[in-house]
């Protein structure tokens, strides 16, 4: 039914399909727009950034083709991968918009050629592994994109950049967004719910065998639903164990991860996740090592450090790493006051629950140069450290720490080169687990946010997306 109806519609509008296949797989963009809309918009436009289309609709289709070409030149499949695409009116305000959405249309398990029994595989991958199209009447991936973007009331004035050269300026690079979304459709996602822990129809996704929680030492496949819910917010403790990806990490991710390393006392020794600051010197290696001293300048044992430190506090933090609390004044104000008291670095404990700890924005009103590094830690970690410090003497805490770039880690992976998955606490519905953690650097295509510095590359040495897809069965 689909094929007859759809074919009739597409033929009627003179825009059947656009082949986008020049690599090891054929990826076809199925134009599902009606006449005059989306891919068929006849508005005349000037060529832009290597996109030679002469109408808005043509340029949109060429951009889709470019993203399809990237994946077609990367993955291998004897079965044509069909992406049904349409431009529709998605939710907008003048300052926010849904750019688009995409995902697999079907999943399969226990088909001939499935690498692991009783696990779900997205349709495109299942077709590839089986060697036939398991449902020829259905496209592999569905994609909807916002036809109104940039118009009044829909992220007014900011448009999709349709060029192919990534020179998007202040606009949104459509090819990058498409490349990201198509990756989800090819299998860069679990079909298991991170918010409820429920498996799809009682079976794990192929993805779940590679999600490993370093706290429980269990894969998502081996966990109960409740354990998966907990794991989905276990920040920087859920890693990807696929061999292709782990092997690729050293060639992709930068060496060194900013961390707070506490070496004493033993009960609190370990590495703590930090947020970094947009002011002062960058956290570096070997970093700053020293005794930690808590500022206590406010009732309730809070150390806000929003004013010049008292003589007693100043004596306490001089030559040490100052631990202060978030709140009341800017981060930079706290650092400046600690710096003026002679501190060598500053740790700011968050005042709200959640993980990872926040990045620390600059305060442009403070022009005094900041010469010591500042990091943030979670509220929970702050409570842990302060409880330990409660046994200190006034001038000696007995707590030794390093604020620095830990060279045992790559940015976005653990010490075994297993990349962190995005597991913020609280759970960000959907963003979690099916993306890399935002600590990854250089920025990765499959982080939850598209960064302006991304290239269109999906393979090492730029990117880890393809190695992950290889882990689940692509080649």
């Amino acid at each position: 039914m689909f094929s007859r109806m759809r074919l009739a519609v597409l033929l009627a509008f003179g825009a059947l399909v656009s082949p986008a296949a020049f690599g090891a797989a054929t990826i076809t963009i199925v134009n599902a727009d009606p006449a005059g809309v989306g891919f068929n918009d006849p508005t005349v436009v000037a060529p832009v950034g290597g996109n030679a289309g002469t109408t808005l609709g043509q340029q949109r289709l060429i951009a889709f083709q470019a993203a399809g070409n990237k994946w077609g030149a990367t993955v291998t499949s004897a079965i044509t991968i069909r992406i049904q695409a349409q431009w529709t009116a998605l939710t907008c305000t003048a300052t926010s918009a849904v750019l688009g959405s995409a995902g697999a249309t079907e999943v399969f398990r226990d088909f001939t050629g499935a690498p692991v029994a009783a696990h779900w595989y997205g349709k495109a991958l299942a077709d590839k592994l089986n060697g036939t199209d398991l449902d020829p009447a259905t496209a592999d991936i569905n994609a909807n994109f916002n036809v109104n973007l940039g118009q009044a009331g829909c992220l007014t004035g900011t448009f999709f950049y349709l060029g192919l050269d990534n020179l998007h300026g202040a606009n949104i690079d459509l090819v990058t967004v498409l490349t990201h979304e198509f990756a989800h459709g090819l299998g860069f996602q679990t079909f298991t719910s991170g918010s409820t822990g429920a498996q799809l129809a009682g079976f794990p996704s192929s993805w779940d065998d590679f999600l490993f929680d370093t706290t429980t030492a269990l894969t998502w496949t081996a966990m109960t639903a409740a354990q998966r819910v907990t794991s989905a917010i276990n920040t920087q403790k859920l890693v990807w164990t696929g061999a292709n990806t782990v092997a690729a990490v050293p060639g992709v991710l930068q060496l060194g991860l900013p961390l707070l390393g506490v070496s004493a006392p033993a009960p609190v020794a370990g590495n703590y996740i930090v947020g970094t600051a947009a002011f002062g010197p960058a956290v570096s290696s070997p970093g700053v090592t020293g005794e930690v001293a808590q500022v206590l300048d406010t009732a309730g044992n809070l150390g806000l450090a929003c004013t010049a430190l008292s003589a007693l506090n100043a004596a306490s933090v001089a030559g040490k790493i100052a631990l202060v609390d978030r709140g009341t004044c800017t981060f930079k104000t706290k650092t400046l006051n600690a710096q003026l008291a002679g501190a060598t670095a500053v740790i700011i404990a968050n005042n709200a629950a959640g993980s990872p700890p926040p990045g620390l924005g600059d305060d442009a009103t403070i022009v005094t140069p900041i010469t010591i590094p500042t990091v943030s830690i979670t509220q929970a970690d702050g409570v842990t450290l302060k409880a330990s410090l409660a046994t200190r003497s006034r001038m000696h805490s007995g707590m030794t720490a390093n604020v620095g770039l830990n060279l045992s880690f790559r940015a976005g992976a653990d010490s075994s080169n297993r990349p962190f998955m995005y597991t913020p606490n609280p759970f960000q519905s959907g963003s979690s687990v099916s993306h890399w953690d935002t600590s990854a650097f250089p920025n990765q295509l499959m982080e939850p946010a598209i960064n302006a510095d991304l290239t269109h590359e999906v393979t090492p040495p730029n990117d880890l997306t393809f190695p992950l897809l290889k882990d689940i069965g692509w080649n």
Partner: protein
Amino acid sequence: MKAGIAIALATAATLCASGAAAQFANQPTDGKKLSETPKSTLPASIAPAPVGAGGMMIFIDPVTGKIRQPDAADIAELLSQRPPTAATFVAQPFVNPIPGGGVGVKLDSSFENYMVVTKKADGSLLMDCLPDARKAADAVANGLKSGEILRKKEVLDVQ
């Protein structure tokens, strides 16, 4: 939401939640409907696909009684009436024989990933990929929070 369209919206919501919505335009919104979509006589421009809809929705202007383009508030309110998609998805067994055996399931749009963008006061853009339709609608209605997006090179809290 404007008074007078609640019934129409509630009806649309019920249809969408049940997965039994009639298709008012000729474009399906997800794979689940690909083989069920009747041809339409209405132009797609007046029956847009709100984010996360399991089927097309139609909005009736309470003043004119005619179909009109819904605004963001309409869509957000409508979506807010839907139960969470993850909880309502019922796996539909793939009905056609699979060569060599196996089991297939059709997915609805709750399994899609939604890229959302918010423009900050300084003109910078924050993006987040939210594979949950309601979360995406909420993010558009309220704007992405800095805590939800990448922190490395984006706008950061200063306090």
